């Protein structure tokens, strides 16, 4: 409990300082998370809602997003408040990438090896871009166990850099989804359950983003 309040206080303070010193800078909001958690689906949802066009391609094959993708000047509004930012969709972070995993999706060996190589570069890019973020939405697949090293490393690095964050527990439209499991795993953080695919609770997410930054 104490840790939670301390973290919130620290993030608010960091956010206030950032507002004072970086007022004229373009705000970057990043979508971070493990592979196949729905980052690009959420990026597309946000872009379609506010710009009327998608950002990237979505498939069920892991590491579909292998390069940083950015949509500039996205403006979200709620109750007279608005925020304009650059939305950054990042490749999923992983500790291992086996080209043989791609063969299961019908890829040829050469194509699978190339995809694996691009995916490793994507992970490195994602990590390097952490320092450029003003806020991050950590997108987790709520049907999977939230306690894994990738999630812990992402959250730890954002905390260490004092970057405000929201945990987005995605895929609540699926039966095996459990946002409460995510909340229990990460008690010190603000968590919101949404479905980027159906749009459920996405308006609440916009409100939380406006409050946070």
């Amino acid at each position, binding site marked *: 409990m*104490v840790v939670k309040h301390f973290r919130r206080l620290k993030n608010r303070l960091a956010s206030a300082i950032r507002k004072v010193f970086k007022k004229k800078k373009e705000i970057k909001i990043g979508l971070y998370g493990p592979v196949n958690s729905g980052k690009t689906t959420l990026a597309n949802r946000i872009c379609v809602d506010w710009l009327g066009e998608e950002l990237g391609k979505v498939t069920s094959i892991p590491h579909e997003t292998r390069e940083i993708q950015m949509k500039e000047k996205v403006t979200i509004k709620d109750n007279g408040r608005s925020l304009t930012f650059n939305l950054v969709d990042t490749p999923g*972070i*992983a*500790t*291992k*990438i*086996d*080209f043989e995993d791609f063969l299961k999706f019908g890829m040829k060996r050469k194509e699978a*090896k190339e995809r*694996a*190589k691009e995916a*490793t*570069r994507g*992970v*490195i890019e994602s*990590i*390097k871009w*952490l320092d450029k973020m003003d806020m991050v939405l950590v997108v987790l697949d709520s049907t999977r166990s939230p*306690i*894994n*090293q990738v999630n*812990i*490393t992402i*959250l*730890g*690095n954002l*905390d*260490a850099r004092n970057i405000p964050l929201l945990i987005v527990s995605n895929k609540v439209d699926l039966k095996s989804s459990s946002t409460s499991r995510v909340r229990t795993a990460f008690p010190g953080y603000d968590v919101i359950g949404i479905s980027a695919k159906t749009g459920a609770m996405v308006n609440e997410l916009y409100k939380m983003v406006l409050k946070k930054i």
Partner: protein
Amino acid sequence: MNLRIKLIPYERLKREDAKKLVKDLKEGTIILVDAKLDPKEEADLIEETMKVVSTKFSGIELSSMELSELKETTNFERFKNMVIERIMGKKRGLTIIGPAKIIRKIEKNPEELLLYM
């Protein structure tokens, strides 16, 4: 296949380059560290790993736990740990890093780490 496990004190790991650690992992060594790595060290390790992923080395499995994560820890014990960790300059706990070809999965419960090989 012979299993090679290396125990490294955190103080030595801090001095070493992540590249050297990854070289050991690539050669099939499992590494145990007597502390929790800090988030930046974890990110560096992932970054260095990704640079050398190949058809023969698919990456690593990594997990760590710190003393303060234990459920029974009281507020006083947490405070005591915090002071000790400040003085020691490390998070007391344990980190396991292994090549993904050897360690398929590490399951982390609040109180234990379970390795699937």
